[in-house]
């Protein structure tokens, strides 16, 4: 198998034209047929792993299953033809990075690792029949890895669903990130940018506070009379609180209000309302909605009684609710790890290894995940939190959490190194 250097990968994937998938080509040229549901399509190689979701966890899992056992067929189902990194996407808001520099293709997974990619959305999982529904057809599997990330509980905030694209979340990197950056750019000097942070748990605990830093840095340097107001549903900054509060000393234009859950948004009046009835006017608003596991996990009833997150075995990531179905990444709950990109990548490797062992009739090794979260507090300085874990009696427990003593350009170098390495670990 030819190796692609990380540099080649980054060169080839960022900004390069997307090769149109052969599958999409088939879709356009195939003549319509009678609406019959075909017999289950059996795997060609005898044993098949399906991965739903090509983000940090799913793409990693697909690659590692193929790396660890090339005799297994792996099909990755992912609606997007491009991978856009959520980590570092707050830097797009401040104009420090372009969205193109965070956008990569899936070509190496296909060409270097033999992962078969279908750009579509899985609509149902039938664990008893071991099959996934895709359109009107089904794909059977031996083991399924579900990595659907998060979806938004838009209904939790009055007016949010109706607001459509006039109120942006920008919490899945892509067009919304670019649109919010544009709104920030067009905001008048002297304007008010309001962002709301949902109650935990949500994707990327330090992410909203990093975003506050980036927006505040941008306003400080470009619109010195403008203001950022952060409305946090939580009682305090929930990640690296002392470090973020120290970093905010540089931003007198940033006002942080704890215990200020936004319950209503009114785009016509350009106003949000908190649960205590406070009304706040905005020029630009960024509502990060409450979150739950991705839609397919809810539809397949992999979520627990909270109807939000999926409980899994700490060693194999097999769902506690469905046999042969593994869930990884932000959709999971119960493992004492944050919903971070590093964790999803780590879970992807561990679940892939578990699947390869189990499919070959062997016990899965007991591997703990890791976590690193780098946060950009300006255009050039970064701070971090690191968590290491071990497995104790079949459960993940933390060995230690460490914070950087502060922010620095050295940690910014480490952050960039981490990003380049982990993007390649996922996709190259």
């Amino acid at each position, binding site marked *: 198998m030819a190796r692609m250097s*990380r540099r080649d990968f980054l060169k080839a994937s960022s900004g390069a034209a997307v090769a149109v998938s052969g599958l999409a080509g088939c879709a356009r040229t195939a003549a319509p047929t009678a609406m019959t549901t075909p017999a289950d399509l059996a795997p060609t190689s005898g044993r098949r792993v399906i991965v739903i979701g090509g983000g940090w966890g799913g793409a990693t899992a697909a690659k590692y299953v193929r790396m660890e056992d090339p005799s297994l067929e792996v099909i990755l189902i992912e609606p997007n033809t491009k991978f856009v990194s959520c980590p570092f996407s707050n830097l797009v808001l401040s104009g420090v990075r372009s969205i193109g520099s965070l956008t990569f293709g899936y070509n190496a997974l296909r060409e270097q690792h033999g992962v078969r990619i279908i750009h579509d959305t899985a609509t149902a999982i039938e664990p008893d029949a071991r099959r996934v529904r895709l359109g009107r*057809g089904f794909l059977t599997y031996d083991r399924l890895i579900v990595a659907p990330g998060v979806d938004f509980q838009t209904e939790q905030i009055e007016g949010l669903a109706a607001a459509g694209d006039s109120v942006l979340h920008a919490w899945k990197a892509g067009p919304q990130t670019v649109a919010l950056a544009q709104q920030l750019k067009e905001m008048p000097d002297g304007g008010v940018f309001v962002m709301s942070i949902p109650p935990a748990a949500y994707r990327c605990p330090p992410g909203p506070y990093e975003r506050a830093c980036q927006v505040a840095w941008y306003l400080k340097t470009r619109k010195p009379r403008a203001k950022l107001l952060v409305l946090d549903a939580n009682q305090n900054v929930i990640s690296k609180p002392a470090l973020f509060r120290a970093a905010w000393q540089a931003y007198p234009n940033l006002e942080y209000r704890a215990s200020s859950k936004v319950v209503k948004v009114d785009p016509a009046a350009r106003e949000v309302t908190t649960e205590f009835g406070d009304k706040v006017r905005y020029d630009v608003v960024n509502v990060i909605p409450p979150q739950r596991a991705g839609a397919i996990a809810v539809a397949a009833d992999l979520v627990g009684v909270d109807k939000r997150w999926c409980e899994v075995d700490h060693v194999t990531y097999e769902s506690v609710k469905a046999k042969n179905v593994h869930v990884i990444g932000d959709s999971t709950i119960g493992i004492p790890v944050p919903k971070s990109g590093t964790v999803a990548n780590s879970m992807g490797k561990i679940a892939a*290894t578990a699947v390869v062992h189990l499919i070959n009739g062997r016990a899965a090794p007991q591997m703990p995940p890791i976590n690193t979260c780098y946060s950009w507090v300006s255009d050039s300085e970064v701070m971090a939190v690191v968590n290491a874990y*071990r497995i104790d009696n079949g459960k993940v427990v933390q060995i*230690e959490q460490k914070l950087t003593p502060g922010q620095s350009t050295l940690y910014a170098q*480490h952050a*960039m*190194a981490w990003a380049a390495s982990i993007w390649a670990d996922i996709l190259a």
Partner: protein
Amino acid sequence: MRRGAGAIRPLVIAAALATALAAAPATAGPVDTPGFTSAFSCSACHGRAGASRADAVPILAGMPAWYLKKAIDDYAAGRRPSPEMEPFSKMVKTLGADEVAGYFAAQPREASQSKVDRTAIANGRTASATCAACHGEDGRGNQAKGTPDLTGQPPGYLLNQMKLFKAEKRSPGDATLTSIKVFMKSIDDKTLADLAAYYSSLGR
């Protein structure tokens, strides 16, 4: 789900399967390589099998096992202060430091691809005489003296380490390194960058 595409979807899937890539050979994967599973977490920062392509993160592939184990021990004990590596070194020790170090030591060494300037390399070569006393003329280090192989490491990593030594932030208070730190404090940062370029260029 796009409406109207459903009717042809089974055919799409069938076509996808029929035109699939040729099945890969059913060879054993790396999963049974000793240390592979214990070490794969490290690739999030240190690159595939320890072959870091990032300028600020060291290459682990092909480094001698004794040095990797010493680094893990020093990080875990706080002798080499690092908020990132201290927790991970403690984790590596729970997984088996021998196995992880042995895994990386057995990987093929691939030199850094970070750009290094010719003039900087030449200047670094001139400035390296003192370093050679412990790191060797070839820069490959010496286990008896406890000095690591510097060749082919990313220049950014090498420079950062020298700056940390200079600022008494790497191995603070280690009496065996006192003379080295005195020496480094006498060198300006530009020359340290030249030294980093020179040692990174060796073995490429």
